[in-house]
């Protein structure tokens, strides 16, 4: 997921969008499963709202029934549109899964496209249980259902930030050592990534991974990992 524009080796679903500012946003389109789960949550919320409204409004007689019918109309047809446009591109269900809807150029979704993608749900649902939408999502790299294709929208994961300080994944202080030979930026990045992730790996796995570089580190297991960490500190420029 290195943000160097998707070369022939890109095997993930990252979708780069070039912005007017000359950089690429790396968008991560979301697949069918989280979206289906988000839809289920929304369904429960909608059902809950209708039941709650039904209990309150049934006390109001015919006028209450009128409001209930209107509420059903709004919740049935406009719930996703209102949330997507007014609430940062996400219904509560999507929010729960860290998803949101964007135009294909990475900008927040507007009224027209949101209306289109949500009305065409009707067709995506056909013949049953979003079968058409699922086939459509599996037929393109951006997981767009038919409504998304027509509207030019996509559902992406929110960009995750690893921590708040800006200097992601602080390395534990320790020995600093220069690598034995000049490393290309890609190679430096591999070592940095390993070092930043090694806190989340158990020591055996970290050692196993580090052993892959044993020709370079001239050691095995934990020793090799320790060496890589020392190089990473040097690459990053951490003060001892």
């Amino acid at each position: 997921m290195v943000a160097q524009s998707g070369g022939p080796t890109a095997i993930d679903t990252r979708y780069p969008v070039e912005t007017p500012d000359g950089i690429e946003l790396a968008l991560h389109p979301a697949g069918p499963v989280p979206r289906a789960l988000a839809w289920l949550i929304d369904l429960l919320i909608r059902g809950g709202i209708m039941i709650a409204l039904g209990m309150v409004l049934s006390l109001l007689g015919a006028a209450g029934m009128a409001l209930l019918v209107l509420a059903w109309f709004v919740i049935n047809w406009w719930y996703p549109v209102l949330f997507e446009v007014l609430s940062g591109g996400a219904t509560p269900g999507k929010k729960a899964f860290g998803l949101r809807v964007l135009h294909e150029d990475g900008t927040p979704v507007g009224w027209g496209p949101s209306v289109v993608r949500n009305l065409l749900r009707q067709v995506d649902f056909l013949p049953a249980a979003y079968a058409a939408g699922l086939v459509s999502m599996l037929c393109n790299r951006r997981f767009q259902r038919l409504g998304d294709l027509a509207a030019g929208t996509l559902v992406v994961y929110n960009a995750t930030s690893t921590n708040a300080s800006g200097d992601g994944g602080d390395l534990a202080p320790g020995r600093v050592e220069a690598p034995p030979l000049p490393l290309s930026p890609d190679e430096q990045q591999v070592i940095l990534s390993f070092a930043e992730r090694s806190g989340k790996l158990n020591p055996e796995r970290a050692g196993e991974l580090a052993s892959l570089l044993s020709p370079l580190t001239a050691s095995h297991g934990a020793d090799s990992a320790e060496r890589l960490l020392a190089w990473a500190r040097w690459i990053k420029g951490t003060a001892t």
Partner: protein
Amino acid sequence: MKQAQFVASRQQRWERYQRQLASLQSGRRTAAPPADFPAQYRRLCNDLAVAISRGYSLALVQQLQAWVQAGHARLYQPRATLRGNIAAFFSHRFPAQVRAEWRLVALCSLLFFGPILWLFWYIGSTPEFVYRVLSPDMVAQYEQMYAREPGSGRGAEDDVFMFAFYIMNNIGVALRTFAGGLLFGIGSGVILLFNGVMIGAVAAHLTFEGLHESFWSFVIGHGALELPAIVLAGVAGARMGLNLLLPGRLSRLAALRQAARQAVRLLYGVMAMLLLAAGLEAFWSASAAPVAVKYGVGALLWLAVIAYFLLAGRHASHLDDGR
């Protein structure tokens, strides 16, 4: 420059950017950002580009990307809001767009009104044909509905309920008619035909059963808005279907997107018409006004709707090419 130095030298600026971002995200969606926010954002873009090209760590790059994406979402908001365009839309854009689609309007009108006319002719000569379209129960129900004196047996509260019901039901039908257009236009066509057959069978049957006065005086008013609106919802769907079938010089996907953009504007007009129609149907059509008045008002409404689509905004439509 080593990554640690790079981060340290920018830390202050990034913190300031984060504070601005947080205050923007907690404020109104369309609130204007602080004056130097765009500049801050661009410098952050620059930092990101530098971080990537120097091979700084993934965690840092991801962090910067997340910030850039959040700033991008705030800066590049969709431009137009509906509010400023409503007057222009109804005074000329909507009727002009309908006129521009006159071929599809003619086709969809044929699909919808054709069965109605045909059933009038056919049920006039063979009245029992209505039972091939509607079940005897439904026929009896409709007969009972229009056998009552108009305005009797319904209070104001029922009117309000029916208003809500008409909104839900009719706009629902219109939206489905539109969505069906994605199936190469077939869905829209089938829904139009189906509704034409149902309405035609009921109307013809009631007319020849001698209930014509209570039926026609009820439907003529709101029908002026409701029936054309359903036809236009069909046009919106058919536009998508047609662009899929005959994309011209565009790719099918690009043609579909163009059609969807146009269709959704038609739909705004359709929904406004159906809201008005629901109001008329609930509060006027069901009222106890004399039959002659209802016919008169109904005729005027039909004339007004036809004149609106033929004439409104003829001179203004060149002012903008319909955004």
